[in-house]
């Protein structure tokens, strides 16, 4: 018996000793992903009347749109544990008459160490944007969600002033994202100017003198952004909070003041519910916080959003309220007041299959003191705009 025991113990011992350790290295993979979206919209906008547009009749209320993006995703891991990869995104863009031109969206590469953090380089979103915490939403519902694609811009070219901190407009930049320490992480990014892509010539430059390095090129230069974020849970409540900030210089020769923008956001989630909000403020105007300087004499801008979502199985529902303010300034000696845009929306998303969603939502927008497209810039032309948008559609991701 003793011999049996000894022998069998030796077998188990040999089994213990003989094990190898798996390799950490991963050969690179290349994937193609993307999405396709179809949306039908019903729009009721008091700026769509013949009297305002100058058209012989009011605009139609119904329209359809399709959208898509193709991503090439490269991922790999070296034997020393360093992850690396790149992403190339091709999108439908509306910069030609057919609305179907394809250009690049984000184009960037990265290296990531398990202990030192991640370095991204290329045309990607800024650190302030990547680490931001914003009001929760469901697909195509939000302060600048699906509704704005269906409406006409106002005279300044914006459809909405309700947004999160700007994403850096994919200007070519470098981004450092730190490891997470006890739930906290931070990031910084830098872009020397606002341009993206491979060419150092400005778009439409007639000669080599017009480089993007010129101190007077573009609308902002030396864009620095950063954020600090916390994620954790207390009891059964998940908490995410972040503070994001960015600043930039205006080009030499500009009379505008250097822009900056700040965003604070908080999300709480438990039992399928997520509630949260964000507040953005800073020295800027227009729709994208901090993408251009602010004229002297104009007040700083701000906007905020509160949102809630609930998810039960394949169905998600959400609602939000959003309010934003921009200073119109003095026009022809008369104060045109503040533009105040308010949006409230409710919506639902049904996940038919993983990667295939059907969404429907309704948004009401009340835009005060806004000037219709084409109207002369006199204070009398600033008026209130009221919009209702209902959208129904599907998005497919692979």
């Amino acid at each position, binding site marked *: 018996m003793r011999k049996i025991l000894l022998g069998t113990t030796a077998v188990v011992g040999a089994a213990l000793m003989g094990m190898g350790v798996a390799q950490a290295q991963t050969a690179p993979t290349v994937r193609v992903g993307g999405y396709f979206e179809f949306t039908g919209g019903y729009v009721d906008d008091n700026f769509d009347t013949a009297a305002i547009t100058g058209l012989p009749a009011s605009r139609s209320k119904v329209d359809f749109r399709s959208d898509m993006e193709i991503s090439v995703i490269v991922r790999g891991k070296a034997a020393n544990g360093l992850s690396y990869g790149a992403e190339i995104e091709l999108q439908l863009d509306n910069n030609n008459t057919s609305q179907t031109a394809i250009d690049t969206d984000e184009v960037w590469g990265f290296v990531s160490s398990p202990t030192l953090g991640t370095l991204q380089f290329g045309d990607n979103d800024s650190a302030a944007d990547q680490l931001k915490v914003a009001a929760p939403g469901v697909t195509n519902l939000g302060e600048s969600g699906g509704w704005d694609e269906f409406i006409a811009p106002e005279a300044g070219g914006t459809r909405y002033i309700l947004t999160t901190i700007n994403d850096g407009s994919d200007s070519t930049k470098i981004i450092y994202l730190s490891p997470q320490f006890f739930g906290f992480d931070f990031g910084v990014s830098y872009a020397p100017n606002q341009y993206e892509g491979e060419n150092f010539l400005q778009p439409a430059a007639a000669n080599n003198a017009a480089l993007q390095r010129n101190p007077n090129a573009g609308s902002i230069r030396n864009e620095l952004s950063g954020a600090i974020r916390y994620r954790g849970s207390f009891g059964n409540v998940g908490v995410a909070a972040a503070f994001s900030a960015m600043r930039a210089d205006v080009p030499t020769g500009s009379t505008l003041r250097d822009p900056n923008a700040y965003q604070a956001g908080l999300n709480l989630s438990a039992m399928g519910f997520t509630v949260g909000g964000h507040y953005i403020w800073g020295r800027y105007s227009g729709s994208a916080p901090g993408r251009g300087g602010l004229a002297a004499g104009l007040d700083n801008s701000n906007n905020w959003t509160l949102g809630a979502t609930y998810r039960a199985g394949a169905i998600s529902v959400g609602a939000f309220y959003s309010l934003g303010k921009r200073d119109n300034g003095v026009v022809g000696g008369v104060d045109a007041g503040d533009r105040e845009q308010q949006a409230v929306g409710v919506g639902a998303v049904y996940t038919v299959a993983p990667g295939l969603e059907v969404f429907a939502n309704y948004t009401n927008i009340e835009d005060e003191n806004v000037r219709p497209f084409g109207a002369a810039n006199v204070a009398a032309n600033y008026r209130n705009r009221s919009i209702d948008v209902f959208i129904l559609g599907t998005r497919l*991701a692979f």
Partner: protein
Amino acid sequence: MRLTRLMMVGLTGTLLAACSALQGNVRTPELDEYSSDRRRDQVRGRLGGSDGILLFGTDRSQQRGGADQGGVGIGVNAFLWRAALDTLSFMPLSSADPFGGVLITDWYSPPGNPSERFRATAYILGRQLRSDGVRVALFRQELRGNAWVDVPVSAGTASELEDQVLARARELRAQSTAAAR
């Protein structure tokens, strides 16, 4: 002297505790842990199951997901299968069928005891990674005169080997989760 030694032990303990606390709470977030305004990222799940269609390379994530749920190119749980292979690899292998989940070793004599030999058969019973998903049968023979004679194996040995396989499977799963980060 004793106090110094005590203090050293205390200090080392504190350092070790601090290191382990740091180790559990410091990590580099995955790329999908950052805020994304991409329309593709707002959609839950992906058609086809994986994030994009694989053009080039080996799909590790699919293997990992598949190992939990059943596996793609393998009929039984991949972690248990690998673990059984690793555990019994000290013996020469006679037959391995990853689809049926049967692993049969050849006879093996422990070093220093040529008059005794073992043979093991491992059965992976399902696609799930669970503790009753593996069964090991162990056979033992002794050389008496010129002939090998069957002798009984102590009752606990087979289940000890099963425990080894399970522990190894657990380790492999932890490694693959860590590698995917």
